[in-house]
């Protein structure tokens, strides 16, 4: 009886170790891909600014056209239009256009919501967070036209600037951006 049990245990042990070994020796392509993605993602460091710090993103002396979108993970219409800004960022890179996504998520949501969202959706546009509660001071500095509702977007280059308190589909967004390109 005892010998049988020992034998049984050995078989289980052998099976167990062989499985472990298998995994070690033959990692599937998928596993490698996942691992490398996780490594890339873990590099995502969220830049957090107050308004004074973020103001430098709102002006340029270069020939680039910037599209700055104010959003938050809890803002449904923002999330809906986000893919259009992502597509713009990718498709218009060659035309010297850059999208910056300014998150207005609450600081307590940075780790729990914002970072996981950026990683999950593999956002390619630059994502920065604005944490400045004195919005009565800085909203009019972004635009006198802004009531404070999000989503909101500014498009600018060194010659002109336009503010939009509205949502966009891709075509509408492209139409606006094209007016900044010469």
């Amino acid at each position, binding site marked *: 009886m005892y010998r049988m049990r020992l034998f049984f245990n050995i078989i289980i042990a052998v099976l167990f170790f062989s499985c472990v070994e298998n995994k070690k020796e033959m990692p599937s392509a998928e596993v490698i891909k996942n691992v490398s993605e996780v490594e890339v993602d873990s590099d995502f460091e969220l830049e957090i600014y107050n308004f004074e710090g973020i103001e430098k993103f709102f002006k340029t002396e270069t020939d680039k056209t910037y599209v700055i979108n104010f959003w938050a993970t*809890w803002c449904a219409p923002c999330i809906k239009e986000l893919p259009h800004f992502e597509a713009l960022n990718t498709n218009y890179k060659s035309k010297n256009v850059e999208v910056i996504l300014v998150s207005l998520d*609450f600081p307590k949501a940075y780790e729990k919501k914002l970072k996981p969202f950026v990683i999950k959706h593999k956002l390619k546009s630059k994502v920065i967070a604005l944490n400045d*509660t004195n*919005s*009565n001071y800085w909203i009019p500095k972004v635009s006198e036209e802004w009531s*404070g*509702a*999000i*989503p909101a977007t500014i498009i600018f280059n060194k010659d002109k600037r336009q503010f939009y308190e509205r949502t966009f589909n891709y075509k509408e967004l492209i139409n606006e951006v094209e007016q900044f390109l010469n």
Partner: protein
Amino acid sequence: MKKTVKLISVLTIVLLISAFTIQNSNVSPGYEVGDIATDFKLENIDGKMVSLADFKEAKGFIVIFTCNTCPYAVAYEDRVEALNEKYADKGYPVIAIMPNNTKVKPGDRMEAMKARAKAKGFTFPYLMDEGQKIYPQYGAKKTPHVYILQKTKNGNQVKYIGAIDDNYQDANAVNQKYVEDAVDALLEGRDIKETHTRAIGCSIKV
């Protein structure tokens, strides 16, 4: 024949006028400080209809466009309740109006408003802007969005438009209580220091 032409031209004119009227109300920029605000008759969470005219004793109102589903509005719930507790007896009750399209935001339906008001112990009316007719007249753009009104012989005059205070994240870190300062000024017959302020909020869902 003549009659028909006449009828058609009258109809056309009526249509044209109504078309422009509708367009006007859509693009209405809303109230400025000094304007007379419209009254309304909106359903409260207790099923009764509420108008500003019902508040015979009031000296004015703290009208707040707010909702269940906006994190900024939620962050201010306790402060809105505190405003009503502080100022209702002094003649400036809070009147909360939910302006969102509930088809877009089911979390703002009347049942949800009732549940939230009960859970938070709201003592102020929480009204549904049925058909979304009132908020465009005020010019509310987001939740929360405050309009302080003062009763005058001409009607309820807008005295303040904007934010509740200057810190949506932390009630304990507030430096300027815009709404309290404004109502205190009205109660004491002083000028309101800041009559227009801005804060981040959720766009009203149409």
